[in-house]
């Protein structure tokens, strides 16, 4: 700052200790007279919208902006007339007159009480550059304007710097920075880049031959995979999911809408039509089922079926979600801010928000979730039949294998039976009594252990207690498949009944079986699969009666005789999920919990025994088949069948074939169900519209003033009669006069191909969003989109044929330092592919990919137990079998509370997302190294490729350099040496997913190749858009 200014300001500041603002005018006059004011003509003209407004927005609007409730000092700086108003004795902004402008004083003063923004606001003071902008702006006449994004885009003149308009605009910016484009990327890199961007898949090996670039671009745009690639963009924006989210997280069947999206993109549906159908397809004249289906977009939000939740609160949440999603996806506005208050930065009031809300407020919906989330469209998908046929064919593959396995297993059974018949003793006993090593209690019950292992309680009579009964592994058994608990009446009990409690009743709330190895502190808990008893009461809900209820961790239910047979012995049998192999080094502890609500019902006398017999022995109270066999002189056909059923439970090859077949049958049944008529959530208007109120502070039941439907006047005003319906609203969004939609949309397309938008905040084109790096280019593309009938492919083609797109992504340290975020595009961007593309590409490169389009969702591999642990077992994840496993990730079943585990940094699909998440973590490395699909792809690559060259062509679309070959050959040799010495390890590695064991003689070599294929799939280059 010049010395003169500083001096004056010091004087000015001295006066400022006097009461404000009575003396100010005087002061202004005084200074104004003393120093004649001149505009420095050599200075660069300031742009209000690009330079001044961002400063005002960031530092001032919070308290002096559109939000009336937070406004301080009755001053607003977002409206010209207000900012420049004659305030009687002073001006905040005086055109051309720095000294008369209180704003200027407030940003430069050193007085902390006067400084703006106030130091305690945690907003940064203006930098010297920013102060300079404000100074020049006021001096140059304080010209006002709108925020750039609210001005209708105009087609700027294309600079005469290149043939291609995109290159011309980019080059103009590069020249300003004294930078230039990089040379073109290598041909295979360009092809990979294009192929990923437009189809989400790498090019096939045969596509690598030279072809005309324009032809390749057109082929990629015409590929059915193009629609799939765009659909992922759109599904993230639409928060699409196959379940509701929240507590129940129930399933919905909205996937036909997903296929509508794929199809719309594959038909190259104009984006305005695409928008209108999704907003208001139901309101179009003679709406087709597909047009109604399109409106599912606005039903893809989460729905909350939590018990105790007020449905109206939920319904309001859904409407809010639609408004916010519309704001983010089409308008690039953070409308969510105005749910509770006027926008602090953008010209959107809370009333405006609820006027938009009104368009979505009269849907025929109740706020319910699950299968009650009306309105529905009854819809039968034309794409489900293919899935049914595929599933049926897979059953046909599995069925004969199961039958053959059964024949083999039966042969093994026959030879076993022959031996068993010869050796079975006539008094075979399935159950083996066990004498406990120790019996203990948590609360103080005492025990007497009798010779036959029976345990009698004594000592204090307690309300609740846990018994811990510990045994050595039974000596005469090699394994334990189940255990039996016998409960006895006794004279010492109340009235000779079953317990010492008041009623002589017992209530067993839980049982557990843990195993502890000698010398170890920790135990293993054995999973119990089922329980049966001689006497149970069939109760509903959390009541005492059923023995199976002893297997959960809930003390509100459990096993009791419910007052019946209190003087008789009773028996319960518990089956282990997997038989426990007896190990003399291990002790078994049975824990009996008596923790019922009323208590006073602890078992009085009991005995525990164990069996090694699986099947009906541990699933019923009948005599074991082998016991019957030992008693019967001859084995009847019926008994033989029972013995066979038991035998094959332990026959691993048969169990594997049976499980494959069972899964195939289950999948076939699910596909058939999906091929029937489904309810798809759609929009439908109520007969009587609901009143819409402003919700005070956004609280669902705090109703303020009633508002009418209206579009956002600050974006594009419409006469009320043209803004009545959802259809009117949709048409307003894609009106060629709407300044936002086309810009926001081309920015999404740019982001898809460059990894980042021309506006780096794709969700926010408002005042707090980033300014475009290339404003003229953004506007030119927006106009180009609108003038070409909202043809998305036209924009993709334009971008793909530019030099900017086709240049190399290599960067020098100098350029990296000058432009670390590649805003000027002196190089192509280099970024990691989204997780879904990495998976799809591994399937594609290996040839595993099943390229079918649409249909019911599929379930890719994921580690065991992920759903189970979130819901404590309520949902079980069963991966798809057969060719369905290798469908594209787009079709993966999306449980809202647990997204597919492979997708390590994808959108979350809870609310709409249009930005890009891209991180680099060790968890991603683990996923790509160890996921089953990646390993299966590696196995297939090992089989299909002939050496390194073939592998490199498939995975990297190029040949290897000699130094690269040397590294890979070295690792191959090391792996081969290992697997030659351990061929069984090789077979284990290769037998992954649905892949069958290899021919033994090829196993070591194939396994070594598999590790190299996996290595290559994990290279940075393989997973990167270069």
């Amino acid at each position: 700052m010049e010395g003169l200014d500083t001096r004056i300001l010091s004087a000015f500041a001295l006066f400022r200790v006097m009461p404000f603002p009575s003396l100010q005018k005087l002061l202004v006059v005084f200074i104004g007279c003393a120093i004649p004011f001149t505009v420095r003509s050599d200075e660069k003209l300031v742009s209000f919208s690009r330079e001044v407004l961002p400063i005002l927005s960031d530092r001032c609007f919070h308290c002096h902006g559109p939000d009336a409730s937070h406004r301080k000092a009755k001053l607003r700086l977002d409206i010209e007339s207000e900012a420049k108003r004659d305030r009687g004795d002073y001006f905040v902004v005086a055109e051309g007159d720095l000294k008369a402008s209180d704003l200027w004083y407030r940003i430069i003063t050193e007085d902390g009480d006067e400084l703006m923004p106030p130091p305690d606001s945690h907003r940064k003071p203006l930098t010297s550059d920013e102060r300079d902008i404000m100074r020049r702006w006021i001096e140059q006449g304080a010209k006002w304007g709108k925020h750039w994004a609210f001005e209708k885009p105009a087609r700027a003149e294309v600079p005469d710097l290149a043939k291609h308009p995109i290159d011309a605009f980019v080059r103009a910016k590069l020249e300003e920075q004294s930078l230039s484009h990089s040379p073109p990327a290598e041909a295979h890199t360009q092809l990979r880049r294009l192929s990923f961007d437009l189809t989400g898949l790498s090019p096939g090996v045969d596509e690598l031959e030279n072809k005309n670039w324009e032809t390749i671009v057109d082929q990629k745009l015409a590929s059915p995979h193009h629609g799939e690639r765009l659909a992922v963009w759109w599904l993230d924006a639409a928060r699409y999911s196959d379940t509701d989210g929240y507590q129940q997280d129930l399933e919905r069947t909205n996937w036909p809408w997903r296929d509508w999206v794929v199809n719309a993109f594959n038909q190259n549906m104009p984006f305005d039509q695409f928008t209108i159908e999704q907003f208001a397809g139901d309101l179009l004249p003679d709406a087709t089922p597909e047009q109604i289906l399109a409106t599912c977009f606005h039903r893809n939000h989460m729905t909350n079926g939590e018990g105790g939740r007020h449905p109206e609160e939920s319904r309001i949440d859904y409407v809010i979600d639609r408004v916010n999603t519309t704001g983010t996806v089409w308008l690039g506005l953070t409308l969510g801010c105005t749910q509770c208050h006027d926008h602090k930065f953008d010209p959107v009031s809370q009333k405006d928000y609820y006027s938009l809300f009104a368009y979505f407020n009269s849907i025929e919906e109740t706020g319910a979730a699950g299968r009650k989330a009306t309105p529905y469209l009854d819809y039968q998908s034309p794409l489900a039949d293919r899935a049914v046929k595929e599933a049926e064919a897979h059953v046909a593959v599995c069925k004969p294998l199961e039958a053959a396995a059964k024949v083999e297993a039966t042969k093994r059974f026959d030879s076993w039976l022959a031996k068993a018949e010869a050796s079975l003793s006539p008094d075979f006993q399935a159950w083996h009594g066990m004498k406990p090593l120790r019996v203990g209690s948590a609360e103080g019950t005492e025990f007497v252990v009798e010779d036959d292992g029976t345990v009698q309680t004594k000592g204090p009579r307690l309300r609740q207690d846990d018994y811990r009964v510990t045994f050595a592994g039974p000596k005469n058994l090699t394994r334990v498949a189940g255990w039996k608990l016998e409960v006895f009446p006794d004279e010492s009990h109340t009235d000779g009944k079953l317990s010492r409690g008041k009623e002589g009743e017992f209530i067993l709330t839980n049982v557990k079986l843990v195993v502890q190895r000698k010398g170890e502190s920790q135990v293993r808990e054995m999973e119990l699969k089922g329980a049966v008893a001689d006497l149970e009461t069939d109760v509903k809900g959390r009541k005492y009666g059923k023995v199976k209820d002893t297997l959960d961790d809930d003390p509100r239910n459990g096993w009791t005789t419910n007052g019946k047979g209190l003087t008789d012995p009773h028996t319960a049998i518990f089956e282990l999920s997997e038989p426990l192999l007896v190990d003399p080094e291990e002790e078994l502890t049975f824990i009996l919990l008596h923790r019922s609500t009323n208590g006073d019902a602890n078992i009085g006398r009991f005995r525990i025994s164990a069996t090694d017999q699986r099947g009906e022995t541990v699933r019923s109270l009948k005599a074991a088949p082998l016991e019957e066999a030992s008693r019967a002189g001859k084995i009847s056909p019926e008994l033989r069948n029972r013995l066979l059923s038991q035998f094959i439970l332990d026959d691993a090859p048969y169990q594997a074939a049976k499980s494959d077949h069972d899964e195939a049958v289950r999948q076939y049944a699910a596909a058939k169900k999906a091929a029937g008529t489904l309810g798809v959530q759609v929009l439908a208007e109520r007969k009587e519209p609901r009143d819409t109120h402003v919700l005070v502070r956004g609280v669902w039941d705090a109703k303020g003033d009633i508002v009418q439907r209206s579009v956002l006047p600050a974006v594009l005003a419409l006469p009320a009669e043209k803004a009545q319906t959802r259809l009117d609203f949709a048409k307003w969004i894609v009106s060629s006069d709407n300044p936002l939609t086309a810009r926001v949309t081309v920015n999404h397309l740019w982001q898809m191909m460059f990894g980042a938008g021309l506006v780096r905040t794709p969700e926010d084109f408002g005042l707090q969003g980033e300014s475009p790096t290339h404003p003229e280019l953004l506007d030119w593309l927006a106009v180009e989109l609108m003038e070409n009938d909202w043809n998305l492919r036209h924009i993709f083609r334009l971008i793909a044929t530019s030099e900017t797109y086709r240049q190399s992504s290599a960067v020098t340290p100098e350029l990296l330092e000058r432009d670390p975020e590649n805003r000027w595009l002196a190089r192509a961007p280099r970024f990691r592919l989204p997780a879904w593309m990495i998976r799809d590409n591994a399937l594609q490169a290996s040839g595993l990919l099943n390229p079918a389009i649409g249909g019911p969702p599929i379930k890719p591999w994921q580690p065991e137990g992920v759903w189970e642990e979130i819901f404590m077992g309520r949902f079980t994840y069963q991966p798809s079998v057969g060719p369905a496993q290798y469908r594209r990730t787009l079709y993966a079943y999306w449980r809202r509370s647990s997204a597919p585990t492979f997708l390590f940094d994808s959108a979350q699909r809870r609310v709409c997302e249009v930005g890009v998440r891209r991180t680099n973590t060790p968890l991603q490395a683990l996923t790509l190294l160890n996921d089953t699909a990646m390993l299966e792809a590696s196995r297939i690559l090992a089989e299909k490729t002939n050496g390194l060259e073939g592998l490199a062509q498939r995975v990297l679309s190029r040949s290897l350099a000699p130094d690269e070959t040397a590294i890979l050959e070295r690792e191959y040799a090391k792996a081969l040496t290992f697997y030659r010495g351990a061929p069984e390890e090789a077979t284990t590695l290769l037998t992954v997913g649905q892949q069958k064991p290899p021919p033994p003689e090829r196993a070591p070599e194939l396994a070594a190749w598999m590790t190299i294929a996996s290595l290559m799939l994990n290279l940075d280059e393989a997973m990167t858009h270069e």
Partner: protein
Amino acid sequence: MNNFSDELNRRTFLGQSGLNLGAIALGGLLNDTNAVSRIAPKAKRVIFLTQSGGPSQLELFDYKPGLRKMAGTELPESIRQGQRLTTMTSGQKQLILPGITEFSRHGQSGATVSEWLPHTASIADELCFVKSMVTDQINHAPAMTKFLTGNQIPGRPSFGAWTSYGLGSVNKNLPDYLVLISRMKRPSDQPLYDHYWGSGFLPSKYQGVKLRNAKDSVLYLRDPDGLPREVRRGMLDGIGELNQKRFEQTGDPEIATRIQQYEMAYRMQTSIPELNDLSDEPESVFELYGPDSRRPGSYAANCIMARRLAERGVRFTQLFHPDWDHHSRLPSWCTARCRDTDQPSAALIKDLKMRGLLDDTLVIWGGEFGRGVAGQGKWDSPEAGRDHHPRCFTIWMAGGGVKPGTTYGATDNFSYNVAENPVHVRDLHATALNLLGIDHESFSYRFQGLDFKLTGVESARVVRDILV
């Protein structure tokens, strides 16, 4: 590129907090020893013992003997003041159910703790009970989301993610934020969504990593069967060398990061199994934490894990114990969850103290809301339970600069409204951040054009009365 902006964002915050920028290597994370923030940190790490479902303050901590006289009478409207109820009880009369447990005073501080928590009672002098917690959500998922992310709508970063973002790593072999969920055998009514420990709009490297009680304790941690360590090492060497060549050709710093991350993954394959392997813990530890601590995946075993993580410098460890939603049958249901958690929670405090870790570890015990004074179901039957209640609940804290042996705040005679010193969830967040040396006002992250804070837009206060 993205990492670069994250780093800029981080540095912007760190700059605002008065941290020494020169000490931060470009592209690297903040080193613990350089963490000199504007507020002197008292805690270096947090252990959050999350009791999901809403434990009953009336049965456990908030002793209201005066209620006995009012048993079965209707809750006065002067107290209820239009408090909304869930639709589970909004149709029934609000009849007072006095706390069904016996209380006594414990320790020199004389804190009231119920008979159902004898072990917690025995360490009352180590704890700071906050009896005046307030939230504004009445249903589980929104309330837990609020409790853990500061906002009821999913999408914001969790408290742990903010902490790991703000403080960075000490341990190079483990993630900064780990989550352990008790293994239980009943279908949960309140699923534990991963957004409870999510990173929201912060980069996903700050999200909590779930340590599962399963074959893969971290998803995809195990190498496939048939792939021995030596072959894996060779593969990683090959990946590293080829990536290095690519880095030299392209100049993309992201490749250098990827090389490091693959190496970290390799180290995690050793460090996590070591962490999970409790065989190096002496018998006395299992005796301290109780019999359930011998069962891997139990809350008690997870408490031992929490101490092991504290020893390894992990910034944020979060345990979840589900099933505190006791709408019925308090005598059997609530006692079951007390037995699961009482001894191990107390043991963790004792253990941390014995090892000199309590001073710089902040331990927080609590759930998303409290429970109402009205009985749900027939009030005078053992079958009765309680509905959700947002207007007051009790949590306790220990260590990490919190004043031990204190009780802060109080409720009215009905344990219905806060009578003095309300502590809103955002105040708890502000206080915890303060103990970690972070000023909650300036700790923000720019997203969608706005500066987001854990404590949200409403003003939050640091509860200075409970700080040492």
